């Protein structure tokens, strides 16, 4: 608008003066531009004030040629400020997300910030994503690589800062659960070069222990950044003994966590995973003790039962039954023999009777009974008259007795 030329315009063409609020409304309307809404702005934090009510007031400025080239006032309301992942500081290079708004009571415009991150953070996120892809492609996060932890480690290595709560937390848990040998491999856990130190600390302790805990307390994304470095991931993956990671809080997952054999939510939890609970072991040992005793008692009882069973089988009743069986058998045999004998005797008797009859039929007595008689001279049977002479004394045998005679005469036929 050309003020000088406007002066020459006729009086009736001059507009009535605007009220301030009207002007303010126009400015507000002009600023209602998509180029000014929900935008990302990078700059240096200056004049930072943390208001008592939780709101944050500051400016974002840009340096150019040694002096400030541009500046914009910013406000971050408490509701948004509460979600800040870090405490902004004077001079910090940040990237904010927000919209330009007008504040009519002050006649100012400002950037109303919804969220803020440290500058360079986006690049770091991208870097992690890139490393993650590469290391995953190399198989370093593969589930197949995961080793199980030793049930009863002798010595555990702890890679962490020698100062700070982490090492104390781990010591306390180990002392409470099962005191054993701890070898601390100290290292810086944040800042420039920390990744190389962590990797070295892992290598240094790996050969001396049964399991390694790599731990760090909670911290910002940037604090934990070294634990995403490929040097650390490779050191964990190539560690000859299992590695338990406990880095940051449970929500923070670093690439080191992905490479570790086991990931624990906190350093204390890592220690709990690594050392068994002595009280629990004692309890289980007691159970074993009872079990082995019960087992032996059971075995003895079983042996006794077996013995009793055998003894039962040896009982006299069983014997006598068997003897009875034998007796019966013997009696049966005897009876059979008797019967056979009787049969045989009967037959023999019949035979004998027959023979006796036959014999009787041949007996001289039987002949005598039919009326014949036998003459004997001097004890011998007289078979013919040639052997006797007159006056021989003969004995004549009848079937029922004898008589003595004297020969009167002998006649030859």
């Amino acid at each position: 608008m050309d003020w000088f030329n406007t002066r020459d315009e006729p009086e009736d063409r001059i507009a009535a003066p605007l009220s301030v609020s009207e002007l303010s409304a126009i400015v507000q309307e002009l600023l209602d531009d998509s180029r000014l809404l929900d935008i990302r702005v990078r700059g240096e934090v200056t004049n930072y004030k943390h208001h008592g009510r939780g709101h944050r007031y500051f400016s974002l400025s840009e340096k150019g040629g040694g002096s400030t080239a541009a500046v914009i006032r910013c406000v971050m309301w408490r509701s948004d400020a509460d979600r800040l992942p870090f405490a902004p500081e004077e001079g910090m290079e940040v990237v904010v997300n927000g919209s330009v708004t007008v504040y009519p009571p002050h006649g100012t415009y400002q950037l109303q910030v919804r969220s803020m991150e440290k500058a360079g953070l986006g690049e770091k996120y991208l870097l992690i994503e890139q490393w993650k892809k590469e290391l995953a492609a190399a198989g370093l996060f593969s589930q197949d690589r995961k080793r199980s932890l030793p049930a009863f480690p002798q010595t555990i290595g702890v890679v962490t800062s020698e100062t700070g709560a982490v090492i104390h937390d781990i010591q306390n848990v180990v002392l409470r659960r099962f005191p054993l040998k701890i070898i601390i491999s100290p290292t810086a856990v944040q800042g420039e070069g920390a990744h190389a130190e962590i990797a070295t600390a892992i290598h240094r302790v790996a050969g001396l222990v049964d399991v390694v805990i790599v731990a760090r307390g909670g911290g910002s994304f940037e604090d934990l950044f070294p634990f995403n470095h490929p040097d650390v991931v490779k050191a964990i993956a190539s560690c000859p003994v299992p590695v338990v990671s406990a880095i940051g809080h449970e929500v923070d997952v670093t690439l080191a966590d992905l490479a570790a054999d086991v990931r624990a939510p906190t350093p204390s939890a890592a220690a709990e995973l690594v050392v068994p609970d002595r009280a629990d072991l004692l309890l289980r040992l007691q159970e074993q003790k009872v079990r082995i005793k019960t087992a032996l008692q059971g075995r003895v009882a079983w042996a006794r039962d077996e013995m009793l069973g055998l003894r039962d089988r040896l009982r006299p009743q069983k014997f006598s039954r068997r003897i009875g069986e034998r007796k019966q058998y013997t009696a049966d045999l005897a009876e059979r023999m008797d019967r056979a004998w009787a049969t045989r005797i009967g037959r023999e008797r019949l035979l004998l009777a027959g023979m006796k009859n036959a014999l009787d039929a041949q007996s001289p007595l039987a002949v005598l009974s039919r009326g014949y008689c036998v003459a004997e001279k001097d004890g011998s049977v007289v078979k013919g008259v040639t052997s006797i002479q007159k006056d021989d004394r003969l004995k004549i045998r009848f079937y029922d007795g004898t008589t003595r005679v004297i020969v009167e005469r002998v006649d030859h036929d």
Partner: protein
Amino acid sequence: MTETYETKIERLKEIINKIEDGNTSLEESMKLYEQGAVLVRQCETLLAEAELKISTLSRDA
């Protein structure tokens, strides 16, 4: 704690299983029980005598 704790516990479990298994003779079972009792005592001692030892490696090594 030593590696032998694990081996002792494993051996103890084997012994119990053998005794529980009826195929092991009574005499063998009693011998096993004696061995088991010794193992239990040794394990108890190992647990009781554990102590915390902390050493810190040099960063220069």
